[in-house]
């Protein structure tokens, strides 16, 4: 290839920098063909260093500050790793169920937030709709009833988190070997009173999502679609399990790559590639290598990977979705939204079951066993599989921490979606319209990356768009914000 190609570089760069931010660069050649795309995520990885020297029982409380968006997942995953360290092989029923309740509360509120606040403006109004309409305010104006329910669904999830973790953000509930509180009858009754409404609203959300998608099914199945492997944990019997299980990976057409892998063996199956241009690593399945071994995680991967769901309403929805492809994995990016709603419904069903379980009022909260030097655990965070790995010294201090977060697991898929969309939508065009840029954002947003930029409603995200030639000279610039 000639080194003299005159390329233009388009940069979509959110200006806000809070938790981490993303930047999209699309390099076009002279003719406007997509040469290369990159999705850069600037992510703060200092936490693995930060916990070094600290005590293992501090990990669940310290590491949740890694992420302002899903702290509960980090809290629980670290607690699960410290369960291994204190030798708590099986938790008491009260501890296990309190943690599950916390986790389903988190999943409910996170999925509700994503669907209503972030992606429904995209879905409802189309990607080209005016900026003023295509945001959460637009949704509220168009359908105030739905918007109100969205807020209350979120609130319900947050109150569950508070009742189990002690606080809505950065609680301390999960501790090595168990939990520090149970659910009182009074607390339980407050939640029981509303759970049927929550369930009803989750069904409505499911229906709304399906209705929107089915109206343009062909389009949604094609938009940003690409084949990938799928990775998630599943229960021993193949059931969907968001809190605990063994690791399973499937190919794009549904063949098992590995199954029933235990957390302590994760390094035999997963490796991480460093690419010079990105701060975020690229994980892959060892046996398939860097090129072919990358995978999707999150709601889509989980629904593709599991054999069934143990709550009736969500299972019915799973069957309906999977019938679209005759039971084979779905490889459409926009199917994330659909599967996210299945999981929201599942979480609501699980919360109802748990609230009716007297084990939550048990008083046996902590288990201890023989201390171990190494603790590895995983959990299905709302955005995908999350790995925590700690090693400690004789003084109980953490000497090594390795975390693979959901957004990192989805790093390559998000790069892929940018690439596919750039090729489909920008190819051959000389003018970069907002609509085209939004298209790429919509694709990324389907993966629900935990970036501060992703939490801004679309159309409100301040954007800096630069077009550069091959010498790095800015030839065109568009700033929105």
């Amino acid at each position: 290839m000639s080194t003299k190609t005159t390329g233009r570089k388009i940069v979509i760069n959110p200006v806000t920098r809070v938790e981490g931010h993303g930047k999209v660069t699309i390099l076009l050649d002279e003719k406007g063909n997509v040469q290369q795309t990159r999705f850069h995520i600037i992510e703060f990885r200092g936490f693995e260093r930060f916990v070094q020297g600290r005590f293992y029982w501090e990990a669940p409380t310290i590491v949740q500050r890694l992420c302002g968006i899903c702290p509960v997942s980090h809290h629980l995953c670290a607690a699960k790793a410290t369960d291994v360290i204190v030798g708590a092989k099986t938790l008491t029923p009260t501890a296990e169920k309190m943690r599950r309740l916390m986790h389903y509360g988190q999943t409910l509120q996170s999925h509700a937030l994503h669907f209503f606040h972030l992606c429904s403006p995209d879905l409802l109004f189309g990607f080209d709709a005016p900026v003023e309409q295509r945001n959460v305010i637009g949704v509220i104006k168009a359908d105030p009833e739905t918007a109100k329910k969205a807020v209350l669904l979120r609130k319900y999830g947050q109150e569950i988190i508070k009742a189990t973790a002690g606080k809505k953000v950065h609680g301390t509930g999960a501790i090595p070997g168990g939990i520090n509180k149970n659910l009182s009858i009074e607390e339980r009754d407050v939640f029981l009173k509303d759970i049927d409404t929550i369930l009803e609203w989750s069904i409505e959300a499911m229906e709304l999502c399906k209705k929107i998608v089915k109206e343009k099914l062909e389009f949604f199945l094609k938009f940003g679609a690409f084949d990938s492997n799928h990775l998630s944990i599943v229960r021993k019997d193949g059931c969907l399990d968001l809190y605990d299980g063994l690791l399973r990976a499937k190919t794009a057409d549904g063949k098992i790559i590995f199954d029933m892998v235990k957390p302590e063996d994760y390094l035999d199956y997963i490796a991480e590639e460093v690419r010079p241009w990105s701060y975020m690593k690229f994980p892959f399945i060892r046996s398939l290598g860097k090129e072919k071994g990358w995978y999707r995680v999150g709601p889509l991967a989980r629904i593709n990977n599991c054999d069934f769901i143990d709550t009736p309403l969500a299972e019915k929805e799973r069957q309906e979705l999977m019938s679209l492809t005759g039971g084979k994995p779905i490889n459409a990016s926009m199917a994330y939204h659909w599967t996210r709603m299945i999981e929201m419904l599942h979480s609501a069903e699980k919360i109802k079951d748990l609230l009716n379980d007297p084990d939550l009022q048990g008083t046996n909260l902590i288990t201890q066993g023989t201390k171990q030097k190494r603790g590895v655990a995983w959990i299905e965070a709302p955005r995908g599989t999350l790995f925590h790995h700690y090693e400690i010294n004789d003084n109980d201090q953490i000497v090594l921490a390795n975390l693979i977060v959901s957004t990192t697991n989805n790093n390559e898929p998000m790069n892929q979606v940018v690439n596919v969309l750039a090729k489909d939508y920008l190819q051959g065009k000389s003018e970069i319209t907002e609509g085209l840029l939004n298209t790429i954002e919509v694709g990324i947003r389907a993966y629900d990356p935990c970036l501060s930029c992703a939490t801004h409603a679309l159309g409100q995200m301040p954007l800096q768009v630069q077009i550069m030639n091959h010498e790095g000279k800015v030839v065109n610039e568009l700033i929105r914000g």
Partner: protein
Amino acid sequence: MSTNVVTFTIDGVEVKSAPDKTIIQAADDAGIYIPRLCYLKDLPPGGHCRVCTVKVNGRPVNSCTYPVAEGIVVENDTEELNSFRRNIIEMLFVEGNHFCPSCEVAGKCELQALAYRLGLLTPQMPYLYAQKELDATHPDVYLDRNRCVLCGRCVRASIHLDKKNVFGFENRGINMRISVNSNDGLKDTDLTKDDKAMSVCPTGCLVVKRQGYLTPVGKRLYDKKPIGSEIETKTVKS
């Protein structure tokens, strides 16, 4: 007037006390809270921190070391003194390395509780980010100097209550630090987790291992009531 009772006022409230008491002791007995950090009822006073400063007849003194006297006029809960106390607390925060949200003694920490009571929400002074040592060598306890406020309670408790001599101060000024009676850290001292010294630290510096976060948020010592309320709610002695 009897010779074994003195009468004086704190913020205009009449207080009666035995003559051999300090102002802080008399105030405690009368149900009046004077903020403090290094003073602890069962230990001889240290007079290190100055948080307990009050004005006696217009002059600032340590109420934990200053004896009561007939007719003195004590000022305690005034904006001037409270802002002075706030400054001390703020300096202690920025001198150490305190991350309350993830700290295992948050909610029962006296430094944090004083900050809340005195209305110090975010320190304005620049953090020093000083390198401080964590001594984790002991199997059952740790000493995290990042959170030490040099109150000396551990020093006094070890000497007076445990009849040991585990802790001491070394260096001076900004370099002052708590030291232990061994060259190889806490593991080579005769400290045990059941020592009285282990229950006196006002912060998360001297802590028994593997006990963190056992109390849920909402049930911790200062979650419901501010520090000092345990004194203020005491029945006033006649």
